């Protein structure tokens, strides 16, 4: 299944490896930060909804 | 506006260090490079244009954050912003003051350092000409960078990061003028392009810098 890369195997494989690693890191970081912010926002929104009534 | 210019110049001379610092740095860079590279005249002659231009650029960078930071801290920038002079004019005057205390002395001292670096004879007039044509652009671009970072504490490093990529075209054309001049080749194209960049930067960047200052004073 693996194609014959010949003497350039290192260049080709490390290009794919490095690029995919960078992409995965970027996507993972974006998703993690998205979740984190979403959770914090939900917490604060819930908390403020609770206090608003006691204010008014 | 002239009053503002003389005030800025007086401050630069009086504050001690602000004036001489850039020059001293330029001198040091030009002395250190041969110590690192080795004393062969031919090698030095080859890299002299690049070193002189990079040194001038870094020396310029060194004093950029002073352009607006002090006035921002003591509140005189707010006064200047509300004064009858347009803020664009204030920026231009301050860039001019910066050029007079760094760019101009650098231009005048550069031939002496050229001797230290074994710059070939025909290069000298072009060294002075390219610095005279290019350093105003360095000051105006720097004023723009300083205007962006004026509200940030310890913005010096950020300022360098923002300004250095903007200096690339000036550096390339400036050093190219000296290199071609030193080799005795026609320099018309790079020096015209260099002057074009300076003229464009002088005409447009004060507006961008003034906009950035207005945002920072909000």
């Amino acid at each position, binding site marked *: 299944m693996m194609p014959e890369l010949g003497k350039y195997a290192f*260049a080709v494989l490390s290009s*794919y490896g490095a690029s995919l690693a960078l992409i995965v890191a970027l996507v993972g970081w974006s998703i993690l930060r998205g979740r984190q*912010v979403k959770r914090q926002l939900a917490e604060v929104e819930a908390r403020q909804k609770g206090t608003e009534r006691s204010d008014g | 506006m002239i009053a503002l210019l003389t005030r800025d110049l007086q401050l630069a001379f009086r504050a001690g260090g602000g004036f001489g610092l850039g020059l001293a740095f330029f001198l040091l860079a030009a002395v250190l490079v041969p110590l690192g590279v080795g004393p062969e005249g031919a090698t030095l002659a080859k890299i002299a244009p690049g070193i002189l231009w990079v040194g001038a650029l870094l020396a310029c960078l060194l004093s950029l954050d002073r352009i607006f930071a002090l006035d921002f801290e003591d509140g005189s920038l707010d006064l200047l912003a509300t004064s009858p002079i347009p803020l664009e004019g204030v920026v231009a005057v301050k860039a001019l003051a910066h050029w007079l205390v760094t760019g101009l002395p650098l231009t005048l001292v550069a031939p002496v350092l050229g001797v230290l670096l074994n710059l070939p004879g025909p290069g000298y007039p072009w060294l002075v000409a390219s610095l005279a044509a290019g350093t105003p652009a360095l000051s105006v671009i720097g004023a723009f960078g300083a205007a962006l970072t004026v509200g940030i504490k310890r913005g010096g490093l950020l300022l360098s990061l923002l300004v250095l*990529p903007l200096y690339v075209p000036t550096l390339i054309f400036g050093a190219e003028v000296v290199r071609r001049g030193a080799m005795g080749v026609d320099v018309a194209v*790079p020096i015209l392009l260099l002057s074009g960049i300076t003229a464009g930067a002088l005409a447009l960047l004060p507006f961008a810098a003034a906009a*950035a200052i207005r945002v*920072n004073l909000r």
Partner: protein
Amino acid sequence: MSIWEYANPKKFMQTSAWALPWVAGLSVVTLVMGLIWGFFFTPDDYKQGSTVKIIYLHVPAAMMAINAWVMMLLASLIWLIRRHHVSALAAKAAAPVGLTFTFIALVTGALWGQPMWGTWWAWDPRLTSFLILCLFYLGYIALWQAVDDPDTAADLTGVLCIVGSVFAVLSRYAVNFWNQGLHQGASLSLDKEENVSDVFWLPLVVCIVGFILMFLALVLMRTRTEIRARRLQALLTRERIA
């Protein structure tokens, strides 16, 4: 129905919540398809051997690194002229994506250059321009990080983006003037004669589409995060004042 409706954060959140899974899914499908096609089912080039396979990452990443900056420029202009917050946040969200693509283009370029030109790095116009582009991205991101007030940060980075674009173009020409370079010309152009041959061209186009979709998906997702972060900050400030 006009495009400006999406300037309303609520409307943007609704629409992007619906669009994001589709764009993300499509981008994964096209990327996987294009890269597998390129990696396993294309022949070697008679001159460059198996290193042509790098083209499926190198060219799309380089294209999108430049296009991301153009998108940031447009978004900054929209923010400065029409004051739509979503636009400013989209520019902020796009910058790290563009920076990552710039890195991919540089890394794959170095790995490709080593066997072909015998050097990892050459001060070639295209390579140098990308290094400068990388610096522009770093400066832009650093300025966003350094300014506390979000509107001030958006204004300042917007101005920087516009001035930076002008200087980026100037640098491109300056660098061209300075060194003629090793890099080959464009791999894709409308002129059929100059194109790479069809066997390489089709999977390359699939990969480019995949990169475009990936960019869109990431920007959508990151913009949603930025909008939420902005609202979170506003709520926290209100809490502190109350």
